């Protein structure tokens, strides 16, 4: 019996190792996808077809507030992982809930920006530039949504089952994913919003 448990333990560390590497590789492939979107955005930035240009439609202070909210959510996500390492269930739930709330706030802000653009007649159908903008930022938003769904499921599981080892692994990967989205957003903020001011 004892040998079986050590075997399982050994296998589990191996599996953790493989999953983490696999997840990193997945993140890199996702980064290539964003790379394609950044490239298309840069190519199509000037293709406004008589419609609005980037400096006419983006509101920098608004984008900055979105950025700060997302960065803060990354910070709280980090605190949640620290709490996870200390096996503090209440704190894990608390920090992840806060991350969730910040994430959903970010998403709502992003959607309100979208709906404002659409109501002004500047939807993605207007020009190549707006197509590229909506797709780039929208894809990031879709990722955030997926992260939020993942987070709510994990929160539910922690609440029910406590901090099991497999849940800990999932939460660690989730935090990797969340930080990754943060980094992508920094690039979006730079290339889409800051560069519109130049």
């Amino acid at each position, binding site marked *: 019996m004892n*040998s*079986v448990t050590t*075997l*399982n333990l050994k*296998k589990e560390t*191996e599996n953790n*190792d*493989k*999953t983490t*590497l*696999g997840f990193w*590789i*997945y993140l*890199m*492939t*996702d980064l*290539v*996808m964003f790379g*394609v*979107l950044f*490239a*298309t955005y840069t*190519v*199509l930035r000037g*293709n*406004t*077809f008589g419609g609005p240009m980037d400096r006419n439609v983006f509101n920098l202070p608004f984008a900055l507030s979105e950025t700060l909210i997302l960065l803060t959510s990354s910070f709280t996500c980090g605190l949640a992982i620290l709490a996870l390492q200390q096996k503090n269930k209440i704190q894990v739930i608390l920090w992840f809930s806060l991350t969730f709330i910040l994430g959903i706030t970010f998403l709502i802000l992003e959607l309100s920006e979208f709906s404002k653009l659409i109501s002004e007649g500047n939807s*993605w*159908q*207007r*020009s*190549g*530039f707006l*197509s*590229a903008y*909506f*797709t780039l930022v929208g894809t990031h938003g879709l990722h955030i949504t997926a992260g939020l769904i993942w987070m709510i*499921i994990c929160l539910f*599981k922690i609440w029910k089952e406590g901090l099991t080892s*497999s849940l800990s692994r*999932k939460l660690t990967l989730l935090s990797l994913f969340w930080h990754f989205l943060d980094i992508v957003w920094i690039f979006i903020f730079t290339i889409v919003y800051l560069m519109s001011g130049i």
Partner: protein
Amino acid sequence: MNWKSFIIGQLTWADLPHQWFTIGGTGAIFTMLGAAAVFLTITKRWRWLWKNWLTSTDPKKIGVMYLIMAFLMFVRGGLDALMLFSQQVLTVGPGVLGAKHGYLDANHFQQIFTAHGDIMVFFVTMGFLFGLINLIVPLQIGARDLAFPFLNSLGFWLYVAGAILINMFFVLGGEFAATGWLAVAPLSELQFQPGTGVNYWIWSLQISGLGTLIGGINFVVTILKMRAPGMSLMRMPMFTWTSLMSMLLVISIFPILAMTIALLTVDRYLGMHFFTLNNAGNQMMYWNLIWMWGHPEVYVLIIPAFGIYSEVVSTFAQKKVFGYPSLVAAAGLITLLSFTVWLHHFFTMGAGADVNAFFGIMTMYIGIPTGVQIVNWLLTMFRGRIRYYSPIYWFFGFISTFTFGGMAGMLMALPPVDFQIHNSLFLVAHFHTMIVGGALFGIFAGITYWFPKITGFKLDEKLGKYVFWTWLVGFFASFVPLYILGMMGATRRMDHYSPSTGWQYLFLVSLIGALIIVVAVILQVVQLIVSIKNRRQLRDTTGDPWNGRSLEWSTPSPIPFYNFPVIPQVHSRDAYWEMKKQKNKSPIIYEDIVLPKNTAMGIYLAAFLFLFGLAMVWQATLFAIIGLTGAIICMIKRTFDENTEYVLPASEVEKLDKQYRLTV
């Protein structure tokens, strides 16, 4: 709200099969399915099929399923090729079957060459390669399974879902994309292709591409993390090395394909303007993006074949492979350089002399590492004792065709020359030489070489040589005329031409060549059947029929499901060769083995995604929602399933292993 379109989208009665080819296709599909169902029912094998094969997470079984599926698709793509050639021969005569020239109208002809290209690249060559990699790589690195057995099963089923979807148009809709295999924009936009053909293209490739990407991640992690103790990177067999490089390419480029297809999708479905002609889309961006994926993709196909040739040459010349580090370096260099040449697919775009010169020179650079590899293989044979079995015949065939096609490639790498032969049949002949003579011959060599390991008996040797010669003759007969035609100005994708050009007899030679290939494929099937019949005489009792060098030959044939009773310790390159030389065997100490359980979740998930894809083709919102939700629920369920492995106790391993050794 319009309920009918919410549920079934744009589907109407008129979309059910009514042309001769859709009725024929549907009939063929259902006859085959019916025959398979009857066979399974009579022999009472449904349960066996489901439990032992379809739900398996064993890479060996998934590999065999890949090979079978790829072969079926090969027949399908081959029929397309025959139709293309016969149209080009018959086009000089009067039109029949409602066509103006020949027997296929222009639009139908376009759909056929599109389907032929996609099927041969995505579902045949990729399928065969993934099959072989699944079968052999875990054995070569001394592993029992892959890093993520479930994802492997899922990847396979996504590939199957894509393959079914690309053939679905026979049953529903009756048209495929008429755009060429890469669905180049703006031709593939709604403005020019309003039907569902391009939608089928989009969802089929998107779903199977996802499977490929998952497979790529899986194999990279497997090769990097699961090698037997002592097997450093520079001790890996060449096939494992080249598979690793190919899979590194897959994970770098398939995201580009996924995103490019996604951009085309939002153009078509949401009215965006990435590649449209109006509202300031940029069509040439599509070309850049698709070839940034497309050119490395060619190397995804060919690099593992290089690995197979390395294994075959060194085994049958009975020497270690010449210049192992330089072979690895050359393969690595090809992998890197493949990212820097995509623009040579459209020198005529007008990027300017400097850009064209850069990409032309980079393209010629690729010839250097490729040449290094060829010299390495030739020097491996030099002063070796070559045994003339059919796998090495394929290698000889490859060397001649590949150098031949490579020269043509070098010619086209020169932008001024390319302006003359761009999009001509010369190009078509070139890439067929590379993919058929390079990748496909390698796959055949690999299948013949590893067949005894997979099944426990060899393929019939004499028929194998017949197969090789028919293939080689058929291949040259069919593609050399295309080089000549291309030089004479015949463009690719041409459904008719004026009789005054005098091209017909060359097309006729090509058609005859294609028919010889048909004979070769029939011979391959005969070879398989004869070998199965004579399996007692052809039986491989040693587990090492070719006096092999790498770890896969250290196991009994067919391989037990746990691969290795004890994970081997590796001390050098050609690990098994060294083991054979050292006579003193250390006593075997058996250990408990953890193995993945079978799971049907891969099938369910792929089925839901298939439903999603099919519904999206027809914009049937309800079914699309069902498909996507189902897929997400399956994924979540699987993620939280903790009970995915089982332990095979040491005593059981010992018993099974002794049994194997007794029968051997």
